[in-house]
Structure formats: C-alpha cells, structure tokens
C-alpha cells in the first residue's frame, strides 16, 4: 500500500526524443550521478546526457557501474543508477544486479537494446537482457514506445524503493530512444510516499507478553534495520529493554558495535559470545533478518529452545525458514517503537552474556613481527572514527573487517553479504566516496578480489576520488585455502597466487599513490599515512599466508560447534 502523490514532470508539448525523455525522467527523480559505460545501442542516451545536469562516472567495466551504484544507494538511501549498452554491456551488469537483488539495494539499471525491428534476429550485440536478468531484478520493463518513458521511469524508481527494495531494469531499444514524440499532456510522474502499514495490536501484545516472560531473551537483527531506516527505533528498544543483542553481517552498525550488551556478529565467523547467547536463549527477537544459513548454521539446532518473535518489512520472510510464534510484518521502525520493551528478571542473563563477551573477546597479541590483519583493521577503524565507511571484498579479510572494525552506523559497513561478490570492494568504495565525500572511505580487499575489478583504479585516478585501499595480500585465495586446509585434508587446489603483480607498482602505474607494509612495527605510521593522504592511496599489506579466520562454525554444523585456532 503506497500512497502516491501526483507530480508533474513538465508540461512540454514540444517533440522530445526518447533519449531526452530518459534524461528528463532521471533529472525529475533527483538523480545526481549515474555510473556507466557507453556503446552502440545506448548512444542516443549518452548523446542527450551531455546537455543534462547529471554527473556521469565513466567506469572501466559495467560490473563496476552496477556495484558502484549499489554502494551509492546504500549510503544515500536513494536508488543507484547504472547505464550500459546492449549485449556485453548488459551481461556485464548482471553480477551487480544480482548483488543488489540479494542485499535488497534499490537500483535502476538502464540498458540499450538493438532497434525493435531487429530484436529476435540475432542482430549485432543483441541479447535478451530482459530474459537474462529476470531472476535478479524486482521488475523490468522493455520499452516499446517512447511516449511510455516518463511513466515507466517513475514506476521504476517507485518500485525499486518500495517494500523490500531492490534493482529494476529498463531496456531501451535504440529506435525508441531515437524516436521523437510529442508528449501532449503533462507527464504524470508519481513520487512515492513511504508506505503506511497498520500495526497489528494483537501481535504486538503477544510479543510484549513473550518479552516480559522471557528469562534469556536475545535481540537478533539484520540488514532490514537499515532498509527500514529503523536504527533509531532499534537503539531505543535496545536501551529500554536492555536485551543482549547480536547482528548478522548486514546488520553490523545498526547498533554501534562498541555498545555494552552488543555481543557481536553471529554465525559462521561470529563471536563465541553471540553464538552462545543465541544457542542458550529462550526468546529470539528477530528483527529485519532472515535466518540465513551463514548466520544460523544447522537450522534445526539454531536457538533450539527459543520462542521466536519475527519482525520484518517483508511478509514473505516471516516463517520462511523458522516458524515464528509471533509474526509482525510491516514498518520495522514503527513496530519496534510500539513494543514496550518491558522485560522480566533478566539481570543474571545479561551478566552471563557480558561475562562471556569479556572472556571470549578477540585478542590482538598474536606472536611474531609480521602484520596481524585484525589488529591493523581495528586500528584503522578506530582512527577513522565515526566518519569511517568500510567497503569490503569477499574472503578472510571481509570477515576480519566484520569481526574487528568499529561501526557506528549501518552505512559504515558495505559488504556483499548475500551474493558474496569478489570484486565488490573497489567499485563500492568509489560509489560510497562519491555519495559521502566527507566520509573516510576505506576499501579493504584481498589479493584475489582486487584483481576482479582492478581496472577501477583508473576511475579513481580520473575523478581523483580520495579512496583509501587496504589490500590484504596473503598471496592466496585465503578463504578457499582455509576451507581446503580444514575440510579437504589440506589438498590445496588452485589457491596459490604466488604470481601476483607488485600491487604498489601496479597502483602507481595507474597514477595512484601506494606503499607497502609488511612489519608490525610500521603499522602506526602506515595508518597515519593512509588516513592523512588527501587523494586516493593504496596500502599494500603483506601478511602470513597461513593466517585463518577464527572462530569458525564448520559448514552444516550447529553454531555451538565452533572451532578455534
């Protein structure tokens, strides 16, 4: 249910090309930046772009356009926009669309298509973009008539933002963007208002009763907090109820991670305190999380003795994997605010959780004189303070960021949680740094991941984006190596990256300042240099290739079966 207020795009009666209507629509939606890469079928739009107020960021691979738009959206809360040509341009977007789809990021992807009469003839750079992207978009439109462009774009932006946000795609055949149409009426564009959901008073009362009678409650929250802009309500509920809390990978930052009572991330690489609390709880209050297998481990032993209150913005998530005793679908913020937060006697439980958190706190006194990545990451986030935004790649370094960095807001931790896209970090850093120029944006990448979108160093240089890159180089596909070591009897298969380039030299070749760090004693100076450099900078960190991420719940095991070093 979305209330919509009609607005007027313009009341032009002169002829406009389809491409001009695309630009008009983007401007009307308040779009400031688009990330893209030109080519034949999208050329009319690029032609119209030059006369517009839109700032275009020319990436060097369309996947990076989608991933940068994703990060832009996560930071601003507004749909990110990416643009690509037909055929290979469109197929290159697919990973980025899937990434946004899995992590519920609002995005509008615009692709060129061959001219309508050629569609279906295997024309040059013709591919069924609509069909290829069907499973990874919320919705898509193939525009058949230029006159439909204003309405379709308005709908696309509305739908990308609404409910469970996600990516939408608009495919534009070249004859449509080239056609001149007279749009005789005022173009009815609709600006979406926030959806209003009635609160379920009976379910709220039932939830209040369960909370009041629980002896060992745990608040388990995820990415739905940021999606529902519910940080304020979550923090208020946490403070008035004083219920110990754990977060999913995507939930990190919704509560400041250094608040007492917050036990850390749960799941496969979660803290022992978080997993133990969930294991032992008698009430699990799940807010904006979806019982993802990385978080739950073996589902049938996850919070096995707990009742469940499930609060989510998306009704389809409730009871999808774990039956809820009380289901509350709707506006997460409003629901949290409506809960009384009155608990029974839980002081003993709180103390137990706090003692566990202290007893099992991460240690940073690893032996040796090499760089210990967890300690380095902790120092960087502490030094950057509340302006810190981390954009991660995928692997061991991603988990170290989640475990050891301090986050004071959800926008501070951008990670490819659902799809686990190696190559996310650098384009996401670009998107985030453009979205929030005053933030200290740090991309933490691995030597495997960075190579997936290394060409974006050219984008950094071109726009002088002051991104800090911390490249954790273990000369391995570390996370895969760790699994091979632990679960495949050390049968190491295709994980050795002994032939990596010299990353500092490589960065310099792109015109980016760079330096190498390989001694623990040099860490303070390196952190200082990283954060004080005005332009883009890459810190190449060599670490011990045998480092593993601990603790670890083996795949398919219960979260109580945690392995330690």
């Amino acid at each position, binding site marked *: 249910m979305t209330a919509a207020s009609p607005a007027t795009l313009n009341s032009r009666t002169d002829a406009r090309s389809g491409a001009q209507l695309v630009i008009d629509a983007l401007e009307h939606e308040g779009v400031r930046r688009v990330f893209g890469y030109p080519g034949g079928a999208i050329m009319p739009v690029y032609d119209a772009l030059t006369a517009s107020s839109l700032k275009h960021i020319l990436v060097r691979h369309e996947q990076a356009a989608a991933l940068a738009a994703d990060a832009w959206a996560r930071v601003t809360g507004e749909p990110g926009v990416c643009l690509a040509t037909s055929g290979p341009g469109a197929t290159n977007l697919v990973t980025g669309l899937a990434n946004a789809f899995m992590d519920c990021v609002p995005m509008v992807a615009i692709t060129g298509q061959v001219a309508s009469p050629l569609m279906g003839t295997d024309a040059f750079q013709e591919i069924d973009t*609509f*069909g290829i992207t*069907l*499973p990874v978009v*919320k*919705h*898509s*439109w*193939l525009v*058949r008539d230029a006159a439909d462009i204003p309405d379709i774009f308005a709908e696309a932006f509305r*739908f990308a933002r609404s*409910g*469970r946000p996600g990516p939408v795609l608009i495919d534009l055949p070249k004859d449509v963007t080239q056609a001149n149409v007279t749009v005789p009426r005022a173009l009815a564009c609709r600006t979406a208002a926030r959806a209003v959901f009635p609160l379920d008073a009976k379910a709220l009362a039932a939830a209040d009763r369960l909370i009041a009678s629980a002896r060992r409650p745990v608040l388990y929250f995820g990415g739905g907090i940021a999606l529902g802009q519910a940080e304020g309500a979550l923090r208020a509920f946490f403070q008035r109820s004083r219920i110990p809390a754990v977060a999913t990978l995507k939930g990190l930052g919704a509560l400041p991670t250094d608040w007492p009572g917050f036990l850390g991330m749960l799941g496969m690489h979660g803290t022992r305190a978080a997993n133990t609390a969930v294991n032992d709880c008698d009430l699990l209050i799940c807010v904006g999380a979806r019982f993802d297998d990385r978080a739950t481990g073996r*589902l049938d032993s996850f919070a096995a003795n707990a009742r469940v209150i499930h609060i989510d913005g*998306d*009704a*389809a998530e409730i*009871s*999808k*994997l774990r039956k809820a005793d009380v289901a509350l679908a709707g506006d997460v913020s409003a629901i949290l605010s409506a809960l009384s937060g009155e608990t029974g006697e839980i002081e003993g439980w709180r103390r137990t959780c706090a003692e566990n958190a202290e007893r099992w706190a991460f240690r940073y006194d690893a032996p040796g004189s090499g760089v210990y990545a967890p300690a380095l990451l902790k120092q960087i986030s502490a030094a950057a303070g509340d302006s810190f935004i981390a954009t991660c790649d995928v692997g061991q370094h991603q988990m170290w960021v989640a475990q050891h960095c301090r986050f004071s807001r959800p926008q501070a931790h951008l990670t490819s949680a659902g799809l686990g896209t190696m190559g996310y970090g650098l384009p996401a850093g670009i998107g985030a740094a453009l979205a929030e120029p005053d933030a200290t944006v740090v991309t933490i990448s691995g030597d495997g991941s960075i190579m997936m979108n290394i060409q974006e160093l050219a984008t950094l240089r071109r726009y002088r984006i002051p991104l800090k890159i911390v490249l954790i180089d273990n000369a391995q596909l570390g996370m895969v190596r760790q699994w091979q070591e632990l679960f495949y009897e050390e049968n190491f298969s295709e994980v050795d990256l002994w032939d990596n380039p010299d990353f500092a030299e490589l960065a310099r070749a792109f015109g980016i300042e760079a330096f190498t760090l390989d001694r623990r004693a040099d860490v303070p100076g390196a952190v200082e240099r990283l954060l004080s450099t005005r332009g883009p900078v890459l810190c190449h960190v060599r670490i011990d290739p045998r480092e593993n991420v601990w603790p670890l719940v083996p795949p398919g095991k219960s979260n109580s079966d945690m392995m330690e070093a």
Partner: protein
Amino acid sequence: MTTQIDVDFLPAEGAVVRLIGLVERRGYELDAMNYVPAPGTHRLSMVVRPRPGPRRIETLKAQIARLYGVTSVSEMSAVPRLEAAS
C-alpha cells in the same frame, strides 16, 4: 502434496514468464497450469509441488504477491495429481 495457486495480475510483457520462473526458482515443480486472459486482470492457475527442503506454500504465495502487477494470490490445497493413463 500439490497445491493450486491462482494468481491474478495486470497483463504486461514477460508477466507469465516471471511468474513461472519464480515458482521454479523457489523450489517448486510445476505440475500443470492454466492461463486465462481477461479484460483487466489476467489469471494464471498453477498446480505446484514442493521439491525437498524447508518450503512453505505461504512463503511462495507472499513471494508471488510482491511481484509487480500481481493483484491477488489465492490457494486451493490438496489437488489430486492426475496421472497419465499410460
């Protein structure tokens, strides 16, 4: 056990493919279907059967309901499976 799901939706390019694709991707076999275009909304009735795994028909219905242009989703349970004679 099969379930018949009736979906009413606004006609649009790709709408039927989107519906069928969602059902298959979410882990259901499509045993049968019937498509009735009508003025206004169209109706697609699908007889679906869950593949092994933690699947709830309520979840599938909610996932269908959030698709663009879907106006209603309803369910008829325990549809007997029609076997071919030979």
